[in-house]
């Protein structure tokens, strides 16, 4: 399979199968075959992770498969990214600061969203769980973030998302604030004045792309 299109097809398959070692190796082989890093991302990674997201929506894939696919994509990105920099054009879609709100230690959903955003070309700053509004704001200012994403898994900690929106506005941040988590709804996002809401990780990627004006 020396043909560039074969390599990209295999790379997509490796991402879809969550084959981290395979994806890393195929990314290296793509560069070796003279494929431009951007073409490798667009042709070898994006369709694979997109298909994983579709299978998740369909109920064919579950959390382990989705996370494994994202990690395979990340492994391939780690190989392609340095070449991208050499190539001149940084593809970064935008900078995202993400975390679970103060008082809430649930971080599976947040980590999943962060992983998928990174795999899709965003530069992600993961602040972890139990993050006070002041830390969200300080980090967003420090990295000049485009997006601030806050997860809350408990009905009791959701109100901290409201506090975060208020803190971001007060600080005059340009970052748009997105909220998510099991009890969170669009109505809640609207009520607290958030810029966006997504009810799963795949939808979060689409939302992020839309908010940074990179809707594909």
């Amino acid at each position: 399979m020396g043909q560039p299109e074969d390599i990209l097809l295999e790379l997509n398959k490796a991402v879809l199968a969550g084959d981290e070692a395979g994806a890393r190796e195929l990314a290296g082989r793509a560069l070796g075959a003279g494929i431009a890093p951007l073409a490798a991302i667009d042709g070898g990674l994006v369709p694979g992770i997109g298909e994983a997201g579709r299978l998740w929506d369909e109920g064919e894939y579950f959390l382990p498969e989705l996370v494994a696919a994202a990690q395979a994509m990340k492994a391939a990105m780690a190989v392609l990214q340095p070449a991208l920099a050499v190539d001149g054009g940084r593809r970064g879609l935008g900078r995202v600061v993400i975390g679970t709100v103060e008082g809430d230690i649930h971080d599976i959903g947040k980590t999943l969203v962060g992983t998928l955003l990174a795999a899709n070309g965003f530069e992600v700053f993961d602040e972890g769980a139990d993050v006070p509004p002041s830390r969200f704001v300080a980090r967003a200012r420090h990295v000049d973030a485009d997006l601030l994403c806050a997860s809350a898994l408990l009905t009791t900690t959701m109100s901290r998302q409201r506090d975060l929106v208020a803190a971001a506005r007060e600080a005059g941040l340009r970052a748009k604030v997105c909220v998510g988590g099991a009890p969170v709804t669009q109505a809640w996002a609207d009520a607290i004045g958030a810029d966006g809401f997504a009810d799963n990780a795949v939808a979060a990627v689409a939302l992020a792309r839309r908010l940074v004006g990179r809707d594909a």
Partner: protein
Amino acid sequence: MTPDDFAARLRDAPLLLDGGLGTLLMAAGLAKGSAPERWNLERPDVIRQVHRSYVEAGSDLIHANTFGASPPKLAAGGLAGRCGEICARAVALAREAAAGAALVAGDLGPTGLLRPPLGTASVEQMRAAYAEQAAALAAAGADLLSIETQYDLQEALAAVQACKATGLPVIASLTCELKKRGAFTIMGDPLVPSLGALAQAGADAVGLNCSVTSPVMLDMARQALPALTVPLAVQPNAGQPRVTPEGVVYDADSEAFARDLLAMARAGARLLGGCCGTEPAFIRRIRELLDAPGALGSSHA
């Protein structure tokens, strides 16, 4: 209580469990983000009162306030190393509130540890955590052990094995969502075979709790019952939490909930209770429906 006694008790009549604990503790002022288990030590009066409200509503079995009392979970909540102390206190409080009128189950929720690719934990680490909590609950005098809200079958199986080692009866409940292809845990474990695996591992009863409301759980129970060799426990949520600008509201309708639970009992479920958002009023209404003549139909009378 021995597993044989438990089986005999379930053959006699359906067992009415309790409802949500967290919702009531929040109403009593439990601070946001604070571990409910902390109140076994700091606000024993409130814990005892909540248990008593369920016993008075007609619960035959109440869960001690130990859902998050596994060593890893306690450590994450700033209570590292206090599993034994907290389990002992929690079981004692439930026992005082039960006053001989209800069984006391030690409650074991997920450890929060995750296996690859989501985390780095091993099944062995999970088993060790459950073993410590199960031993603490047994030493504290729990009548039986209730494993709840399990989303990873491998973790649930480790929990059953650890709990069975105490010799107490064990209930093991999964939490499932409805996908296009059927009911699964978030990790992709399919409902019916997974409940079968838990029974195979030695669970004296298997169950479903949380995640879904009573009409959805009724469907899931009907799917599961024909394939089961052990009794089924059902504890749905009261309704999806709905957030209004004023706060969180559960779309709770105790009458519709109780009727769905009665339908599950008629379909063959033997342990009936509620999960998030359910309150003593829900349990009281199920009690009334169950106690009515012919409640379970002629075949179960």
